[in-house]
């Protein structure tokens, strides 16, 4: 197995402690940083698919994301100030009144692993704060809104409407969470919907690529 294949396998199995050394060895063998990064992105895509299919669970996904993050730390200096994120910035948060965190964080990790810079606004985020974050951050291409309560679906709608009527452009809006459906996403004017963290990353790339 080549070093780059080894990196890929170890990200998939979430061996966070081994990854920095393996990434360094892959670089020492003469592999391009971009190719190593791509291998890790591909790994996380497999992890996302396995999660969506119910083959792995939250801890495995968290460990894989941590492993990738450790690998990216080694590669970052080699990108000479350029971002390792190829799809721009994603602003993510759980909408106002809702304190659910874990689902949003899983989506955040998966979207980051797919090649986005992440601005995580946390939980209980007002519509105004989402709009402000789009204004304040560079190259925002995606806004991801999470909501897990039937009572916060109103806040989800208000957030999407605030973003769409803000006059700001260049970004798409994706939504998700237990009560959210594709029909609801369409009805409130969101550009996309994903039922879980694995498919959120796939949908994010699809939306941004246009």
């Amino acid at each position, binding site marked *: 197995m080549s070093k780059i294949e080894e990196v890929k396998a170890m990200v998939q199995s979430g061996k966070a402690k081994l990854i920095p050394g393996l990434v360094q060895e892959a670089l020492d063998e003469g592999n391009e940083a971009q190719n190593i990064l791509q291998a890790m992105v591909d790994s996380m895509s497999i992890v996302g698919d396995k999660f969506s299919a119910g083959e792995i669970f939250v801890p495995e996904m968290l460990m894989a994301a941590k492993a990738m993050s450790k690998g990216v730390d080694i590669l970052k200096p080699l990108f000479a100030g350029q971002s390792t994120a190829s799809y721009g910035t994603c602003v993510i948060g759980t909408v106002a*009144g809702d304190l659910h965190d874990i689902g949003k964080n899983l989506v955040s990790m998966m979207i980051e692993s797919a090649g986005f810079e992440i601005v995580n606004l946390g939980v209980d985020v007002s519509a105004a704060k989402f709009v402000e974050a789009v204004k304040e951050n560079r190259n925002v291409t995606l806004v991801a809104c999470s909501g897990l309560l039937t009572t916060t679906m109103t806040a989800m709608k208000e957030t999407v409407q605030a973003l769409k009527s803000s006059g700001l452009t260049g970004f798409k809006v994706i939504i998700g969470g237990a009560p959210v459906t594709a029909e609801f996403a369409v009805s409130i004017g969101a550009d996309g919907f994903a039922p879980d963290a694995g498919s959120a990353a796939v949908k994010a790339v699809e939306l941004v690529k246009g």
Partner: protein
Amino acid sequence: MLTKRQNLLETIKGGNPDRFVKQYEFMHFIMEAPNPGGNFPEPGQTIKNNWGITFRWPEGQLGGFPVHDEEHKVLKDITEWKSYVKVPPIPTADEDWAPAIAHAKTVDRNKEFVTVFVAPGVFEMTHHLMSMEDALMALYEEPEAMHELIDRLTEQELAYAKVLIDRLHPDCIFHHDDWGSQKSSFISPQMFEEFYLPAYKKIYGFYKANGVELIIHHSDSYAANLVPFMVDMGVDIWQGVMTTNNTPELIKNYGGKISFMGDIDSGVVDFPAWTPEIVGKEVERACKTCGKLYFIPCLTQGGNWSSFPGVYDTVNEVIDKMTKEMF
């Protein structure tokens, strides 16, 4: 006509119930029983409980949540859990228990089960203390420390169980511990078996060995993959079973070993724009597809109420209607 207690037992033992069990009707909750963890917030409140865990319940929303920013997280390093986690004392004074004892005495145990609501469970305690991410990654990164922490939490549950039994002699324990999202268990069955099954075998085994007749475990989630473990640990009824579990299939596979209470997803019927028609359709579907034995039609929410006024009672009315149709 059977009493609520008799009808429940006929239902879960595969006998001859004379009607559907109406949600929580057979449980007589003794909510005055002191909880060593302390209070839970009311809507609009932020409180710190006896473990030092901060909970917030945003006004107008459906529940309280632990706060896990760096300032509020109780357990910041699992390897140092002994220095971070301060286990609160179990209330043992007579005056602490007097209201609960007085209430329990008023219950006719031939008709209803004297029930104590115990929450949160061991799994929830780990993530309330340290956040879900930290608690789940620690299962891989620091398994020994996690085993130690789980053992300590289990000891605390057992110490509470002992006092509870001495004071109230409950017939039934309604025990909360959410083990999944609506589509999946949070952790794999293998990991559950290693970390949490032993803890629950001890806790539920202790209750059973000391006269508690019914163990009801609440997890309003997917957890079909954990049902064999529920059977093994002594759960009599899994309350909160969501439709995503394929409840009729579970009844077919496990009826007689465990019963299922739920299949009316609260998120589908108990929401601001709820209607009696939506409730009617869901209750009818649940009763018809799940049948009369090993099944209790119930909202998946973990308690005898609904978030929006009228929903709980409407569910009961439709269950009565289904009884007339099916019994």
